[in-house]
């Protein structure tokens, strides 16, 4: 899974998320058209990778809870910062019970502040705000490309 942002001089206004579509295990490729990017709100999305069960379960859990927030609060949107921290909190709570083995890149546009942001999150519930990042095998390639960026 790969993610990159476009660079602008002052607050970033765009985030780009990209991912592969492979769903495979060992010698079997189950699927080549799995959408691993989940829409969280009209202005944010989350790229997620890991075993299919956790990938689907966690992404649906988060996206439905965020949809519930908007319904319960008269259309109020959570900022990407808040969404990312919510997401990390769920990973952290589950960590010492039954962890979700998922790695995430969460990107979104904050309509109140007028700026875009990107978050790197792993299965141990680490969270970092980044300008560019990658999860999975892609990181081996992308990180080298980003040296000196």
């Amino acid at each position: 899974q790969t993610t990159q942002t476009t660079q602008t001089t002052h607050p970033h206004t765009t985030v780009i998320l990209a991912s592969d579509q492979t769903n495979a295990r060992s010698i079997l490729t189950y699927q080549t058209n799995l959408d691993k990017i989940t829409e969280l709100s009209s202005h944010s999305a989350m790229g997620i990778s890991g075993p299919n069960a956790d990938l689907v379960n966690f992404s649906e859990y988060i996206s439905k809870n965020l949809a519930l927030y908007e319904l319960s609060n008269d259309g109020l949107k959570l900022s990407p910062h808040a969404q990312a921290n919510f997401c990390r909190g769920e990973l952290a709570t589950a960590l010492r019970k039954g962890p979700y083995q998922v790695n995430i890149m969460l990107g979104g546009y904050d309509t109140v502040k007028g700026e875009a942001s990107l978050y790197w999150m792993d299965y141990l519930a680490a969270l970092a705000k980044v300008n560019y990042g990658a999860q999975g095998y892609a990181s081996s390639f992308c990180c080298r490309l980003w040296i000196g960026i």
Partner: protein
Amino acid sequence: MARRYDSSTTTFSPEGRLHQVEYAIEAINNAGTCVGILAKDGVVMASEKKVTSSLLAPAKSSEKTYKLCQHAACNVAGLTADANILIDQARLRAGRYAYQYCEAIPVEQLVEHVCNYKQAYTQYGGLRPFGVAFLFAGYDTHYGFQLYQSDPSGNYSGWKATVIGANNQAGKSFLKNEYGAKKEDEDEKMKGEEEEKSAEEAPEASMPDVQEALRLAVKVLNKTMDATASSPDKMELFCMTLDDDGECSHKILSADEAQKVIDEIEAETAPSGDS
């Protein structure tokens, strides 16, 4: 006749009323008055300080104004002991929201949480309702400065200006006329026609700034309090504004600052006396 249906909160009367809830609302009409006024650049809450005994040790903190979180505060009218429970609930909720989202809780959500808690006592458990009405003042990035009022039923609403506690009806009707009313002076008279047109089109009153709101709040308290002379030890003035860093600042006016506001009003109402 309704006595049979009075005792239990969880029972409707034949007329479809919850008497316990209504009685709880009545209890607040004996409490010290609180006025809340929304201003362009902040929120003002003024309350009547009821001095019950001179033997009482001087209060270390306010018994009317409470900080709920960095960006919200409330004024209490009613049973202080009941209020303490609800204030704890509000503080917990604000803290838990910040823990979950790393963001400030939108003010309405905080109010709604407290109100849902209150509502439970009108429907479950056979416990009496809370005898407290609140004025909530807060700021968030979604709707700016806001003022809310809530009562024992668990109902809440947003206001530009409102009064709770003793003589609140008198206070409210005073505000209806005075809030946003333009003062007559030369500049205003020149714009007279334009104002009339816009007043017809936009019935919304023009919002005062914090200083005007403070003066208006004191005027309301003067109306609702029995006392003939107003003084800083009879009232508490609170205002919430944004400081230069964009952070909310909570301020209870000192006795001198409050006296200044009181003096400004006295100067207004007695313009050209005998000199």
